[in-house]
Structure formats: structure tokens, C-alpha cells
């Protein structure tokens, strides 16, 4: 295309240039450092989202009063673009790992809560009654029936949460950062290094696609019956 239309290389680039930049960056150390920084923040936020979100969803699904109390509040938060809080988070918690991790946590927790909640709601009542009739305790109920039958929902939630968490990382690093893959992309953009910017975008997209696909596979192995009513 660049041979047919002479375009300004300042604003446009071509695959061969991106390829060269890609090779150069993969061999260098900066890219790996940026990826490590971003993934650390992502993993912290994501882990806490799992630790807090799943128990909250379980309790919400099982206890009617907890559901009534929390549902309107959490639904409102889930529906709203919490990313709008990004500047505040970065300013309060700093440009380091903490600010981004907090942002990831805030965005990733809701899919866990609501999917766990939906999973508990759809648990087979018969199984619950069986545990009850054989004298199972509340703990047995949670660990042996509710959690296993909720698992596919949680995995589906994880898939959504990954997407939202990545948005958190990217926005956090676009806004203010000194390292990280999002920062690398926006800096390359600011300095008109288009091939470098494309490398960053492609790498981030690849990571997102691989993670999402992994979750989809996991979901299909754990719950093949849900494969039919898949809505992405």
C-alpha cells in the first residue's frame, strides 16, 4: 500500500517496519521489563478480586437478606463505568503497582461476585436436600455442592474479569506511569514511533486473546453443557 500511495511515514507505518521493530523489542530487555511491571499489578488486583469476590458472591447467593441488601448497590456499581475513578486512584495510591492493582481489583471484582451469585442461584435444589438429609453441615453444603456447581460460572466470570482488568491496567498506565506496557504504548504514540506503538498494541492484544481463549477452553472442559448457549 505504501508503494502505491506515498504516505507520510510520520503517521503511517507498514508491516515490514512493525516486524523489524518487533524483532528489535523482543531481543531487547525493556519490553520484558514493561510486561513484568504490568503483570505484577494485574496479578495483585486480580488475586484480590478472586479472594473477595467469590466468597461475597457465595454468601449473596445463599443468604436472601444479604442479597437484598447488596444487590442494588453492587448492580449499580457494576453497570457504571468505574474506570472514571482511575485518575483519583492513581493520585491517591500513586503511579506504582498499588494504584493500578487497586484499579484492576475494582474492575475485576464484579464479574466474580455476580457470576458466583448466578451460579449459586442455579444450584440444583435436589443436591442441597441430599446433603441436608444426610446430616451435612453448612460447611459441607458450601464445599461439596454449591462451590463445585458454581465453578463453571466462576470461570465464565474470570473471562469477563480478565478483559475488565486489562482495561484497568491500560487506562492506569496511559494516565500516569513510568513503566509498563500501557505506558510504552502511549509513550511511543507521544513520540511518533508508530512501529513501536504497533508492537505494544499487538503484544497486548495477543495476551488478551490467549488469556480469553484459555478461559473459554477451561469453561468448555468444566461445563460442556453450557457450550451451546454461549453468548460472548
Amino acid at each position, binding site marked *: 500500500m505504501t508503494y502505491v500511495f506515498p504516505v507520510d511515514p510520520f503517521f503511517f507505518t507498514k508491516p515490514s517496519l512493525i516486524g523489524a521493530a518487533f524483532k528489535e523489542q523482543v531481543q531487547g530487555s525493556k519490553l520484558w521489563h514493561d510486561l513484568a511491571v504490568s503483570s505484577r499489578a494485574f496479578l495483585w488486583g486480580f488475586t484480590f478480586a478472586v479472594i473477595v469476590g467469590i466468597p461475597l458472591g457465595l454468601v449473596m447467593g445463599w443468604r436472601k437478606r444479604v442479597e437484598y441488601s447488596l444487590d442494588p448497590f453492587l448492580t449499580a456499581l457494576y*453497570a457504571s463505568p468505574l474506570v472514571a475513578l482511575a485518575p483519583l486512584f492513581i*493520585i491517591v495510591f500513586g503511579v506504582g503497582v498499588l494504584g493500578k492493582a487497586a484499579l484492576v481489583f475494582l474492575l475485576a471484582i464484579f464479574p466474580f461476585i455476580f457470576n458466583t451469585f448466578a451460579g449459586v442461584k442455579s444450584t440444583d435444589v435436589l443436591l442441597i436436600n441430599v446433603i441436608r438429609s444426610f446430616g451435612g453441615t453448612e460447611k459441607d453444603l458450601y464445599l461439596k455442592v454449591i462451590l463445585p456447581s458454581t465453578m463453571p460460572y466462576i470461570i465464565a466470570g474470570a473471562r469477563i474479569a480478565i478483559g475488565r482488568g486489562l482495561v484497568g491496567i491500560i487506562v492506569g498506565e496511559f494516565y500516569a506511569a513510568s513503566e509498563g506496557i*500501557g505506558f510504552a504504548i502511549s509513550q511511543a*504514540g507521544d513520540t511518533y514511533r508508530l512501529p513501536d506503538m504497533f508492537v*505494544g498494541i499487538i503484544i497486548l492484544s495477543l495476551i488478551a486473546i490467549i488469556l*480469553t481463549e484459555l478461559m473459554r477452553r477451561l469453561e468448555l472442559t468444566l461445563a460442556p453443557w453450557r457450550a451451546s*448457549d454461549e*453468548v460472548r
Partner: protein
Amino acid sequence: MKARKIFAEHESLILGTGFIVLLLVVWESIPLWYTLPRGMALFFTTPSRIAVAFYELLLDGTIEKHFYVSAVAFLAGLGLSIIVGLPLGLLMGRSATLEQLLDPYVTAANATPRIVFLPLLILWFGIGIWSKILIVFVGALFPLLINTYVGVKNVNRVLVSVVRSFGANEWQVMKIVVLPNSVPYIIAGLRLAIGRAILGVVVGEFFGSSHGLGYMIASAATNYKVDVVFVGVAIFMAMSVFLTLAIKQLESRLASWRPEAAKSF
């Protein structure tokens, strides 16, 4: 006894609003029972101060000005994604060639957080309204496209065959069977698209912008005007909740026969 009966009848409503009120009261009263250190106080605000800030910004027209800019980006981007997404989704669902041609790209693009394209769009289209419209567009396009496509794929084959045997052409099949059948899916896609579109507006205006509610939030944060940040966030929240509820209403009216799926915004 009577109070208990009222409570039992409206338990969900009472507990739901009660919890929100309780949170607001606790938040409001934090400065009363705990003196924040000076550094923390800079980042702190209370609901009443947010309300005051909202009122002031409303009076001097700041909110109106920024809201207008954001609304234009939102509506233009969403409109564009409907214009492109719906026909493309319908075509992909009906034509196997087009499906095989486009499906890998659509799936890949849907898995990618489209926000990463923002610096590129800003570079190409400048910091004006167009980069915002386009980031809203790429955000909202895929949920719409994919849901339309899934809806078309799920059309009952028998119905299509019946209409065909009575001599309908492809256009009539589309109009009589396919389109009505995919409406619930399209509405569900629209709900997802609205969420993505608002995300696009917010983030698009954070960077390289001089107008809009997102800009208002970002610049207030840099100036430590925390109450103004929350005013902006609250407006976005109200908008999203309102739009989501409206679409849900529409959805449940149109698709009361569909099983309840897990919430996904």
C-alpha cells in the same frame, strides 16, 4: 406486628435502599469521629460536599457544557456502530463465506481491550471529537455485531424453510423470519454496547482532550478537587444505570421467553 408485616412484604426494597443509605451516612460521618491526617484529608470528600459541588457546577453551566460534548461523542459513536454492526452481523449470520472470512478477526478484536487503540486514534485523528467518536465506535461495534450474528445463527431452520418453500427470496426471509428472531439478541448486544461506549467516552476524554465530562474528571483529579471528580463519576454512574435499566426493561418485554442468563455488562 404490623411493622413486621410491612417489612416482610417489602424486604428487598427496604434492605436494598437501607444499605445504600447506611453507606452514605457512614461515609458522611467519617470526619466527625476521626480526624484525618492532613495528607489524607486532601483526598477526602463527603457526599454533602459532592452534592454542593454538583449544585454549583450545575448553576455555572460547567456540567451542561461538558455533558453536551460527551453526549455528542457517545451518540455519534454508538450510532455509527449500529449502522455498521447490525447489517454486518446480519450478513455474517446469513452468508457462510463472509462468516469464514471475518469470524477470526471479529473474535480476536472482541477479545482485545479496544482501549489500547486510543493513542493510535488520537495520533491519526487528533484530539478533537473524532478520536472520541471512533474509540466509542470500536468499543461498541463488536458486542452489537457478535450478538446480531449469534441471533441470526440461532434462527429456527424450520421457519426459514417454510418461508422459502412459499417462494420467499433472501430479502423476504430476512424481513419475515430472521430479523424478528434476532431482536432479543440485538437488544442484549445494545446493552453491552452502551457500557462499552460509555467506557470509550470516559477514557477517550481523559487523554488529549479539553472538553467533556471525562476531561472534567481528569483535570479535577490533577488539581485535587476530589468532590468534582465524584460529581463526574456520579453523572456517568447515573447515565449508565439509567440506560441499562431502560434497555433491560425493553429486553424483558421483548424476550420474556428467554432463560435468564448471568448478568454481563
